[in-house]
């Protein structure tokens, strides 16, 4: 309902609706949102700067802590960037193991998201249900890598632990468990009347807007963009999978309009896709080495003699992760840039949140699966509390200066 009365509504930075600190300032007309301002930066930890003081192996474990949910995607993108500079060939078995763990991570992230989305609309039974079945994939990851959340599986040029026959049995059992549950779970998530009533037709992001704001991952695919780094720029074992296609709501016979329901449908279908990819990799797992067999010191010594720049791209559960490194004959990189998916997707909140009801704010915000810890790469703190606005040209000029300087050092 619209009204002439306009008032501001602050949500955050500390608010029970989001698990992470982020501040929204809404301009409310009656009960409708007329505009929104977003303030990031509360979880800025300066990871890019710390990384310049650590050696190449230590950075892998630092980058796991960029985000606890994408704790495999970030170090993988970094390893791909370093392997790009050093022209290291990853053994076939390691490529498959990387794919399996990446897909297990996607599975647990999407199950986590469906639970959070159900919680945001007050459907706590579904929240408990999905988080309960999610424990199975965490058990699998724990047996496989030794930890539930931060796996520590990657090294430059391969992985650190192999899949033993006992592990493959666990994975087979896990796949059977989820295949059995999938039909029931997708029926609840996609056909339930309550969920449909709360998610259909709200938070619309049109195809043009998704292109304009450079949306990535399920957010872009929900708007009908067929965009997936696994297919467009394949790494790991994704070369070998002929049937892998970007998921779109058309797969369940629905024309995508980019609402919350479409984004949910994409994630639910991706759960099935991940299960199929894991099954494919387990059936076709090649024999051989899992890494180059060189110790950390040898790898660092090799990278110390290199210069150049490399880029690594990988499709994290939330979208494209991109890491950029510059090496210059030193024990540590002289530049590291982390580009996380929420960095792009965060701006799609502006068209999504405009002209919705106040009650829909939590589910629309949760619908892009935000990860603030991933996105907080830069912050300005001024002691006098003054606000500054920077134009596009100014920031562009600044970034050119910065990267030129570091490349010439």
């Amino acid at each position, binding site marked *: 309902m619209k009204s002439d009365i306009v008032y501001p509504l602050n949500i955050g*930075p*500390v608010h*029970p609706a989001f*698990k*992470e*600190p982020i501040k929204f300032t809404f301009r409310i007309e009656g009960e409708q949102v007329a505009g929104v301002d977003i303030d990031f*930066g*509360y*979880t*800025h*930890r*300066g*990871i890019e*700067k*710390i990384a310049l*003081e650590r050696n190449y192996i230590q950075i892998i*474990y*630092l980058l796991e*802590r*960029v*985000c*606890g*949910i994408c*704790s495999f995607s970030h170090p993988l993108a970094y390893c791909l960037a370093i392997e790009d500079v050093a022209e290291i060939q990853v053994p076939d078995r390691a490529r498959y193991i990387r794919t399996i763990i990446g897909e297990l991570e996607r599975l647990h992230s999407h199950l*986590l998201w469906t639970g959070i989305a159900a919680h945001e609309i007050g459907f706590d039974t579904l929240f*408990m249900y999905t*988080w*309960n079945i999610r*424990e199975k994939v*965490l058990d699998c990851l724990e047996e496989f890598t030794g930890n*539930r*959340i*931060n796996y520590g599986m990657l090294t430059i040029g391969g992985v650190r632990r192999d899949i033993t026959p006992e592990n493959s049995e666990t994975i087979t059992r896990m796949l059977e468990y989820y295949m059995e549950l999938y039909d029931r779970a997708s029926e609840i998530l996609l056909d339930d009347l309550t969920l449909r009533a709360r998610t259909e037709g709200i938070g619309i992001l049109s195809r043009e807007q998704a292109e304009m704001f450079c949306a990535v991952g399920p957010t872009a695919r929900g708007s009908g963009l067929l965009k997936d780094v696994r297919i467009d720029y394949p790494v790991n074992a994704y070369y070998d999978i002929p049937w892998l296609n970007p998921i779109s709501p058309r797969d369940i016979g629905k024309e995508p309009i980019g609402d919350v329901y479409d984004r949910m449908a994409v994630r639910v279908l991706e759960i099935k896709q991940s299960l199929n990819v894991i099954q494919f990799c387990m059936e076709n797992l090649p024999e051989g080495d899992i890494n180059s067999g060189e110790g950390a010191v040898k790898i660092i010594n090799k990278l110390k003699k290199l210069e150049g720049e490399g880029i690594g791209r990988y499709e994290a559960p939330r979208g494209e992760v991109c890491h950029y490194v510059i090496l210059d004959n030193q024990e540590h990189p002289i530049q590291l840039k982390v580009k996380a998916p929420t960095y792009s997707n965060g701006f799609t909140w502006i068209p999504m949140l405009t002209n919705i009801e106040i009650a829909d704010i939590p589910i629309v915000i949760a619908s892009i699966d935000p*990860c603030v*810890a991933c996105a907080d790469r830069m*912050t300005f*703190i001024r002691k006098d509390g003054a606000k500054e606005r920077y134009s596009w040209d100014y920031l562009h000029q600044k970034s050119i200066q910065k990267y030129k300087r570091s490349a010439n050092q």
Partner: protein
Amino acid sequence: MVYYYRCYNVIDNNRGTYVKKINYKHLKRSLWAYHMNTGSCNACDIEILATLMPRYDAERFGIKLVGSPRHADVLLVTGTVTEKIKDKILQVYQQVPKPKLVMIIGSCGATKGVFHESYAMAGPLDTLLPVDVYVPGCPPRPEAIIYGVAKAWEKLEEL
């Protein structure tokens, strides 16, 4: 017979002092927790939620997350304290009624952990607030978090 009623503090807000002495005995069960993220990477946060989910089910002990610090007995803090959120954690701490406990979940809240060289840190938390229970781990397992809450009970009994 065990009485499961909650004891609300009677505080003179202007002076911040107790008007009535509180019977701590009634607070030693069913702790209500308020969770605050002060720059964590989400790993500890999802482990806290996993603790409350059906597998580990800490809610059977009466532990639950509440939406406002004013309803809480325990402040669960995850993450290292960043410069930008320092004021907010101090404000939230003021809002929790006495007697209150502060629990740090995760290594980086206790020691800055892997981010120890960072320029953006105001923590570790125990330099800003009195901390009662530390749960180390990156992230700690749900069992460790339940053990930490059990330690918090013991601490409340001593008060």
